[in-house]
């Protein structure tokens, strides 16, 4: 049944469309072996599904994203995270395509996650929530797509963790998707990426307000830990060159060094702002769970270590995009996926966009990326 989604944080933008949520009657069997029940998936759609249901594009959000791709966020009131890419006349054109985006399970924007009540105890799950994987997230999305009566998606598109989900779609449900567009991602999380995530998780767990994950019951919020996690992660989203260009050694609201630990440098206050604004909209336990899901992602591992075996002769069409200055998911990792697809004679295009904006480039104004996305999706739709 479709219902209004329940958010962890209060809605501050009453004019914003909160989207929908669907609670499934059957449990979701997870990779960890446990059943998740009930399962709610919160989602938002844009555009109109055509009569033969052939114009649906699923967008998968990244670690800290949500279903509000192209419309105002009901909690923060800020514009959707990919308004530059999705909307009427945009590269993912909602005048032509029906766009679906759902909050991942484990998330905190209305889909079942650690902040929800555990039906067995009547209290928030906290750490009793089962570990979910990228494949589990995709299973929940597949249930939603089925619920919407769509037997085949035109495309699955996503950046970063969204790209991992797009790859998983191609491996798990090749017959249910015509084209897949993973952007700035990889078929596995690297040691360096896991390391950065662990720093973030330890920052959260070291916050005395985290209370072993039971902060909701105890009336605290591990804001400091979550903010530090976000700050550390944010550094990985930008390139050294872009940081230098944007901030250099510029001082923040002062003429000279203060000889204290207050933020002297602009980069420091920028990171503080990134951390603080994040805790207003995100749940610390969700952050633990979703980063873990990314760490566990290794598509080849499910196929005896052979990435090529993840994709068969029925693989959908692929267009893979990487960015030259992305050191979190570098071109080499993206290309690895493309080569594995070549090995099984799949239809794969690969584009490397030249930019100094780092991993976050997929969220930013990159005209060449827009050209690739628009051209690829239109070509798929016209074929």
């Amino acid at each position: 049944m479709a219902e209004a989604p329940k958010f962890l944080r209060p809605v501050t933008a009453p004019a914003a469309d909160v989207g929908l949520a669907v609670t499934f009657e059957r449990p979701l069997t997870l990779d960890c072996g446990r059943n998740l029940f009930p399962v709610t998936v919160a989602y938002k759609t844009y555009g109109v599904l055509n009569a033969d249901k052939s114009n649906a594009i699923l967008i998968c959000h990244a670690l800290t994203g949500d279903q509000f791709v192209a419309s105002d966020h009901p909690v923060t009131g800020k514009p959707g995270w990919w308004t530059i890419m999705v909307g009427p006349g945009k590269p993912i054109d909602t005048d032509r395509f029906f766009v679906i985006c759902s909050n991942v399970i484990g998330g905190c924007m209305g889909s079942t996650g650690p902040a929800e009540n555990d039906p067995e105890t009547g209290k928030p799950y906290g750490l009793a929530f089962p570990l979910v994987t990228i494949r589990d997230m995709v299973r929940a999305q597949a249930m939603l797509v089925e619920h919407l009566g769509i037997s085949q998606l035109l495309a699955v598109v996503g950046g970063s963790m969204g790209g991992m989900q797009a790859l998983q779609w191609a491996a798990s449900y090749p017959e249910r998707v015509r084209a897949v567009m993973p952007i700035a991602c990889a078929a596995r999380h690297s040691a360096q990426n896991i390391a950065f995530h662990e720093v973030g998780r330890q920052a959260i767990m070291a916050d005395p307000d985290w209370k072993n994950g039971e902060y909701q019951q105890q009336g605290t919020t591990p804001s400091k830990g979550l903010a530090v996690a976000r700050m550390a992660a944010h550094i990985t989203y930008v390139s050294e060159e872009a940081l230098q260009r944007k901030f250099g050694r510029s001082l923040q609201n002062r003429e000279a060094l203060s000889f204290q630990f207050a933020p002297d440098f602009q980069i420091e206050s920028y990171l503080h702002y990134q951390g603080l604004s994040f805790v207003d909209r995100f749940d610390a336990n969700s952050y633990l769970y979703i980063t873990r899901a990314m760490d566990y992602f290794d598509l080849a591992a499910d196929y005896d270590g052979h990435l090529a075996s993840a994709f068969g002769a029925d693989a959908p069409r692929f267009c893979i995009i990487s960015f030259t200055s992305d050191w979190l998911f570098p071109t080499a990792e993206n290309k690895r996926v493309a080569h594995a697809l070549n090995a099984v004679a799949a239809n794969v295009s690969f584009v490397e966009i030249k930019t100094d904006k780092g991993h976050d480039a997929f969220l930013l104004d990159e005209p060449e990326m827009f050209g690739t996305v628009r051209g690829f999706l239109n070509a798929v739709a016209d074929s």
Partner: protein
Amino acid sequence: MSALRPDLAAIAAMIRPGTRILDVGCGDGALLEHLVRTKGVDGRGIELSQQNVNACVTRGLSVMQGDADTDLNEYPSGAFDAVILSNTIQATEKPRVVLDHLLRIGRRTAVSLPNFGYWKVRAALAATGRMPRTKNLDYSWFDTPNIHLCTLSDFLDLTQICGAKVVEAHALNERGETRRISPNAISKERWGGPNLTAPGAIFLLKKA
């Protein structure tokens, strides 16, 4: 779809319908699109320029942004019925390695290249004492992408080194039009032979 350049049309004529094709250095995808539309081939491309790759993707083609010098080793042996290398071999860093890969990946390999033995090139060098600039090769020596220029005879030598057999050879004229020639006509340097009269040529090769 605009008319195909005559040299590309000559390559297209060598491709059998419904086959699997890899076009290395496929540019904006004009030849590949032509082959997909008119011959129903299962086509793939490799292209260095990002703008060109975008043009290909928009045409609905499957093209990898990449470099013939570094990326061909990722392709399995015998993966394609034919591999095309059009006007690109002279711009590769290691032409022999590239040609070895092409012969390994494709059962047939079509290569087109400019001829540095063309009489106008020879005449320009002889008359001016400077590196020639021609219609096909209009670059200064210090900023040309064409770092491994050769004559048609030189290229035939390379095919032998790589253990390839010439299945077909076509000489190009100034307008890009082609005429079929015997490979022997090239290897025997003589007055009026293709190595002197043709600004370029197309070869269809296979592993001997």
